């Protein structure tokens, strides 16, 4: 990858922001799906998209995607708490569903899988408009067992749609180890659909970014879809209140030692892009920002029963 300090710093900011979200929201919500250990994937995948690009993010990391696409932090926090200031007005949750006005296609139901099809549709629309924009479809190793996932990849390949498929393979789905959910290597499926596929080290933000750059360029130039499998590890539980009695503590510890944030920090220091103090300051600033936004959201107005408004159901 051509060295570009803006990109390098931007990705660090997104990693740090993601970690701040985990810390702040996770402390308040037992149902928060943390991203600890997977920050490199989120940062590399969602950083630097064009305004017109469309993203159907994986639910784990969906807020990072929304913020990377320009969504307002305060309104996203309000959306975690079901407040009226939220994009969704408290009707729906922002932790899995970002604002469509920022090109995010969220989970509108609880089923994982269908958003991959929505990403294909957005991509087709971009082709029709000839705007060079692309669609991103991100999903977990568990989600990759859904038929939606295969149909969407096959569809994108046949129609040469500008979609970048990213499997955020954190090696587990709730308690199911990836090998119990997938018969073979996920990136190998690309071949069966006739598209390029690659596996990258998901704990190395630069490797993920390099793969993304290549895939995005191909998509923008009309070269069709790509599948990137970013192999990482879910260091946290499935959600905050997960008892996690199904996993080996030693394995978790080993992966905690491979922390992608620490690894990237070392790289940035070594390359002289940012120094430790600057990064610490940024970290602290982001935690403070997220904290302030979350606190403000907590104090925000709650919907009142009269706000059910069935008259809003139809456009």
């Amino acid at each position, binding site marked *: 990858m051509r060295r570009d300090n803006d990109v390098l710093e931007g990705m660090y900011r997104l990693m740090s922001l993601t970690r701040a979200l985990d810390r702040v929201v996770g402390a308040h919500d037992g149902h928060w799906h943390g991203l600890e250990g997977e920050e490199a994937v989120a940062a590399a995948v969602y950083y630097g998209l064009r305004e017109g690009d469309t993203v159907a993010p994986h639910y784990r990391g969906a807020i990072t995607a929304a913020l990377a696409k320009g969504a307002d932090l305060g309104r996203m926090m309000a959306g975690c708490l079901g407040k009226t200031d939220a994009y969704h007005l408290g009707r729906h949750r922002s932790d899995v569903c970002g604002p469509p006005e920022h090109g995010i296609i969220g989970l*509108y139901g609880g089923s994982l*899988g269908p958003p991959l099809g929505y990403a294909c549709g957005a991509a087709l*629309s971009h082709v029709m408009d000839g705007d060079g924009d692309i669609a991103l479809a991100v999903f977990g190793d568990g989600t990759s067992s859904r038929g939606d996932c295969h149909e969407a990849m096959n569809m994108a390949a046949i129609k040469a749609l500008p979609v970048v498929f990213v499997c955020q393979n954190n090696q587990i789905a709730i308690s199911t180890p990836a090998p119990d959910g997938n018969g073979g290597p996920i990136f190998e499926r690309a071949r069966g659909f006739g598209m390029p596929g690659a596996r990258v080290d998901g704990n190395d933000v630069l490797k993920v970014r390099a793969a993304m750059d290549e895939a995005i360029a191909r998509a923008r130039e009309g070269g069709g879809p790509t599948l990137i499998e970013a192999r990482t590890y879910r260091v946290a539980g499935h959600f905050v209140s997960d008892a996690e009695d199904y996993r080996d503590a030693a394995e978790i510890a080993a992966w905690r030692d491979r922390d992608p944030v620490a690894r990237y920090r070392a790289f940035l220091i070594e390359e002289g892009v940012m120094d430790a103090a600057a990064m610490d300051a940024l970290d602290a600033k982001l935690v403070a920002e997220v904290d302030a936004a979350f606190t403000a959201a907590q104090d925000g107005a709650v919907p009142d029963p009269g706000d059910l408004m069935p008259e809003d159901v139809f456009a």
Partner: protein
Amino acid sequence: MRMTFQQAVVAAIEDEMEADAGVFVMGQDIGRFGGPLRSNAGLFERFGAERVIDMPMSEGTMAGLAVGAALQGKRPVLDLMFGEFLALVMQQFLDAGAMHYYSGGAARVPFVLRVKYGIGPFHGHAYDHHSWLMGVPGVKIAAPSTPQDAYDTMRAAVRDDNPVLFLEHMALYHAGRAEVERRAPPLPLGPAVRAREGADVTVVASALMTKRALKAAETLDAEGIEAEVIDLRTIAPWDEEAVLASVHRTGRVLLLSEAISTGASINDVAATIAEKAFDALEAPVARLAPPPIPTPFARELERAYLPDETRIAAAARALARWTA
């Protein structure tokens, strides 16, 4: 111009494609093949592969693709082939129906899903599952009964900013031509029409059942029973005002369904009448629907399965004569 139901549907799509470059059609075998039962005949020749898009057999993703394109401002019209394939796209419909509301109004999903269904000459894929969508907020269901209505309703459906299930009955599809005026939609989705006026009994129907109800009404007319036929046209949201007004006029109501009664869309109509027009009712709310079995294959069983003119007339007659 005289057209069949099928030609009227295609003409409406053609006119909307002409009027709005964002309208495109997609589905299996809709290109050169023209669509099953000629459901898209001529569109490929006229608009080409970019706006008449052949699809692989991936129903969920087809529907998903339509939703994704609609979110970007396009107006996809997806020919799903047959109504029974609704079972394969329910999640996409749930999501699509919720998007506008959940997003606080930011998202719009102008997407028409076409399905052929019903017992008819095609002798297959008759299943009618539209009633499932009655439980899905944000989705509209259209079920026209004549070529003109098919034309008008399809144009309204394409212009609607919500996901619309558009029902095309295979027994009406190629069943004769009627005069069709190619006009801008005179009505949005929603309003029912009084297909026939009558003072003695109300028959609520749609699609093929409307046609049969009108025939039954002629039989009854000869016996001195005046049946009023309300053609719903739009099954969701259905026209409560028109139905209740008719029940207030007649005091007696028969509801027709091609789906088995236990989960039929007309049950909401029945329940609403029993709730809101109770005072006006002079007789039980009657339903006529197939028995609770999977759609049968043998022609003899098909005939016994579906409400026909004779059974509709009999049910309406019994209702007109009913005394406590």
